[in-house]
């Protein structure tokens, strides 16, 4: 990833040229934005959802939202920060939706109707046995992560992604660096405690 100063300059240039050019070259500018940020957006979403298809769908939603709201973008933050903020919001919304679906799925199971949408595949390995074990581990991790508060989850998952400094995470989450550090620390502790409790009983 580029350093912050370079990214800021690039963002400003894109924004200025967009503001000067009007609607005609909006698509060209959008294309350049997608080219520049697609990898980071997809990987940000992937950290949250553990699933390639969902991550790509979410990334599409993010860029559609960017296209829709590009004219309303004010230079209060960097363009990249704004895009990653949309990615985080969309990912958290997606997780909430899955939670609701799961809740509905368990209700369906109680009344006798199965719901396959509750299962989230996590293809980490090519070996079937390993893949199965990793899949289970991924599900355990995901369910522990999903029980964290949104702010802790977002700060922790962003910190695990290459390219985001605590300063950038603070800008994305609209908070201070010390708050981000605290959120990450609490998230790690909560996650450890939840996983410990889980393995104690299984």
């Amino acid at each position, binding site marked *: 990833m580029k350093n912050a100063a370079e990214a800021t300059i690039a963002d400003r240039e894109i924004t200025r040229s967009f503001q000067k050019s009007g609607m005609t070259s909006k698509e060209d500018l959008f294309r350049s934005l997608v080219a520049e940020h697609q990898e980071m957006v997809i990987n940000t979403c992937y950290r949250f959802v553990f699933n390639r298809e969902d991550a790509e769908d979410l990334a599409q939603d993010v860029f*559609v939202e960017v*296209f829709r709201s590009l004219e309303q973008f004010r230079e209060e933050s960097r363009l990249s920060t704004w895009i990653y903020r949309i990615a985080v919001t969309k990912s958290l919304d997606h997780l909430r939706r899955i939670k609701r679906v799961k809740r509905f799925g368990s209700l369906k199971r109680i009344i006798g109707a199965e719901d396959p949408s509750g299962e989230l595949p996590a293809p980490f390995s090519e070996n079937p046995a390993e893949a199965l074990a990793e899949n289970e581990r991924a599900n355990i991790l995901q369910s522990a992560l999903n029980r964290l508060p949104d702010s802790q989850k977002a700060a922790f998952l962003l910190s695990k992604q290459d390219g985001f400094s605590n300063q950038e995470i603070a800008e994305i989450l609209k908070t201070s660096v010390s708050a981000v550090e605290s959120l990450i620390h609490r998230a790690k502790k909560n*996650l*450890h405690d939840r996983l410990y409790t889980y393995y104690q009983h299984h």
Partner: protein
Amino acid sequence: MKKQQEHIEREVGKTMQMLDELKPLEVHHQFRVRLMQRVEGEFGEGSKAMKIGFSRYFDLRLALMALLLVINLSTALLSFKSNDMQVSAGISELLDNMGDDYTTQEFAYYEQTASQSVDTATDSTVR
């Protein structure tokens, strides 16, 4: 007991490590194509034409509504005006009728007798 704790800690560590070992995704070569198709579908010429069609349809409806409103208002105004004229005509007619009523032959008797009685009264005083 200690062994079990160590085992649990190892499992916890392995599970948490998954996040660090998560390999970054490479963007699918069709991603941008699909995205641009979707953007084109949602904001492109087709949807623009549809939006223009909708706006024209709504403009037409708005114009029709405005026309109906103007017709209604002018009809109301006209009917109000004609009513007003009728009322004023009615009043003047009533006044005329009243005037006619008191100048008819029947009332002439009272007027005549009244004037006659005044005349006789003045004659007697003169005498």
